[in-house]
């Protein structure tokens, strides 16, 4: 009889799916690259420089924090810091100095992530907290650092209106100045404050909601943060993530649906006269909807909870766009909903199989 062999023991199950955290994170990095190409196309090499600075700072900060806390430093290369660095850079205007995303990334990783215990333990989205930190600290840079997207015509670079509306008309009427350097949402916000001039307000809004404008929004031929402008490239990334099984669609769909609904409901001056498509495509909603609302660490785990989260974030986005102090509400809406995530999880815990709702 053969010698009996001895084996290592381990807990069940002994097989597992091919998903792992590292792979998911790098998949997100891959999915974010098309938008980077668009950024290079529209904003020039400067955009790449800012993104590189941001990602470098994020990974370095992660490494330093882990080292300082005497934790395994290989976690710094699991890709999550890269995602945070990328998304932070995607959330700043292209005209800011290089140190701005560096400071933002360092804050995002050191304070918003590692101080809370690192990957998986943070309560709010690090990239977005980093962005909010930058807005509060350097408001001038963060609200005035827009640069207009570049366009090529007959082989030559021409500047177009950053707000993405057809420009000739505006130049003639002398209103061009009124919207200079703005983004579409900035332009929209301004129309809300021209209460005394309903016609002018209405006219500019009609231009913003026009087909031409929507087309520009879709392609990314508008002013905005580095990674948020080109909807089509973001879609490409999102499709990749869906194919790889990384994205669960409850969050993005409920968020986008809610933005569209409330955008139509009160995204114009009055009721029911907003343009849902404009509100979906402008600003950070697409970037946020596929890449930030979906940050699993800071969003609910239950199915119902994810839907509630998406609807709430969509509502807050539109409330801030319409009545708030900022032209865009995407990032704050996600941060605010992040605060409620534990409560949402708690109150949407599913009834387990075979359990009946208790009366009363």
């Amino acid at each position: 009889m053969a010698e009996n062999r001895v084996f290592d023991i381990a807990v069940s199950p002994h097989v597992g799916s091919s998903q792992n955290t590292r792979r998911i994170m790098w998949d997100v990095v891959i999915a974010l690259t098309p938008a980077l190409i668009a950024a290079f196309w529209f904003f020039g090499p400067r955009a790449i420089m800012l993104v590189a600075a941001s990602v470098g700072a994020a990974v370095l900060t992660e490494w330093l924090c882990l080292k300082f806390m005497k934790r395994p430093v290989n976690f710094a290369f699991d890709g999550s810091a890269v995602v945070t660095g990328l998304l932070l850079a995607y959330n700043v205007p292209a005209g800011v100095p290089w140190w701005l995303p560096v400071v933002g990334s360092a804050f995002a990783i050191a304070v918003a992530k590692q101080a809370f215990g690192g990957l998986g333990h943070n309560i709010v989205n690090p990239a977005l907290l980093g962005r909010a930190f930058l807005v509060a600290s350097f408001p001038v840079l963060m609200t005035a650092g827009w640069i207009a997207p570049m366009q090529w015509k007959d082989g030559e670079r021409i500047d177009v209106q950053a707000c993405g509306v057809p420009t000739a008309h505006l130049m003639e009427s002398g209103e061009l100045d009124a919207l200079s350097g703005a983004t579409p949402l900035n332009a929209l916000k301004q129309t809300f404050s021209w209460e005394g001039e309903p016609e002018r307000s209405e006219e500019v809004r009609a231009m913003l909601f026009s087909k031409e404008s929507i087309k520009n929004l879709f392609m990314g031929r508008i002013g905005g943060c580095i990674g948020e402008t080109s909807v089509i490239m973001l879609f490409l990334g999102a499709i990749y993530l869906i194919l790889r099984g990384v994205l669960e669609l409850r969050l993005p769909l409920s968020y986008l649906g809610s933005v569209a609904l409330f955008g139509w409901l009160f995204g114009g001056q009055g009721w029911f006269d907003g343009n849902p498509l404009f509100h979906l495509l402008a600003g950070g909603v697409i970037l946020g909807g596929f890449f930030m609302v979906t940050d699993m660490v800071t969003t609910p785990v239950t199915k119902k909870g994810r839907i509630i989260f998406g609807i709430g974030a969509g509502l807050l986005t539109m409330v801030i766009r319409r009545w708030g102090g900022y032209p865009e509400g995407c990032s704050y809406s996600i941060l605010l909903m992040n605060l409620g995530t534990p409560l949402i999880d708690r109150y949407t815990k599913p009834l387990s199989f075979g359990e009946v709702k208790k009366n009363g």
Partner: protein
Amino acid sequence: MGEIFKVGFMLMLVAVIAAVALGYVNSITSPIIAEQKEQAKLDAMIDVAGSLAMGELSFDSLSIPELENPYAEVDETLAVVSVTDSTGNELGYLFIAYGKGYSSTIQTMVAVNSTGTVTGTTVLYQQETPGLGANVSNPDKFLYQFDGRIASQFLLKKDGGGDEGLDSITGSTITSRAVTNSVRGGLDALLEAGIITLEGGAQ
């Protein structure tokens, strides 16, 4: 019963002593506080009206019944103060403009001469964002553009003021607009009431 009485008495005693002591201190400080508030206002007025003429100035508040106050939601009456020199010559007027800014109602004191030209401005109160709107308090950032303008020239470039319009503070259009429009509103009211006229002044 006696116990409660004693306890109540003690507490009352403490309160009475406290009230008396405070009343005494208050009697000393209240005139100082009032005076110092008055002085602060006076300083501001002198500061702004100093642009009207050199030398000793005196201030007299006007009550103008027919004047419609554009700031009715903040103050019942538009307080206009006439400025005279030591010999009693009427030099111009002071008024306070109220404009709803980003996060506060900004109070701007404006000196205007009798031909409707603004000669001095200062911000009395604002609670705008530090680093953004709060820069209105810094004369070099915004208010320096105000002197020498008449009512119709108070418009931001952004709001259709054209090349002649006012530059807004970087990143603080709302604050800039609030101050600009409130000053224009005050000037318009004075014009309408006939207190100032544009004859011979800047076009």
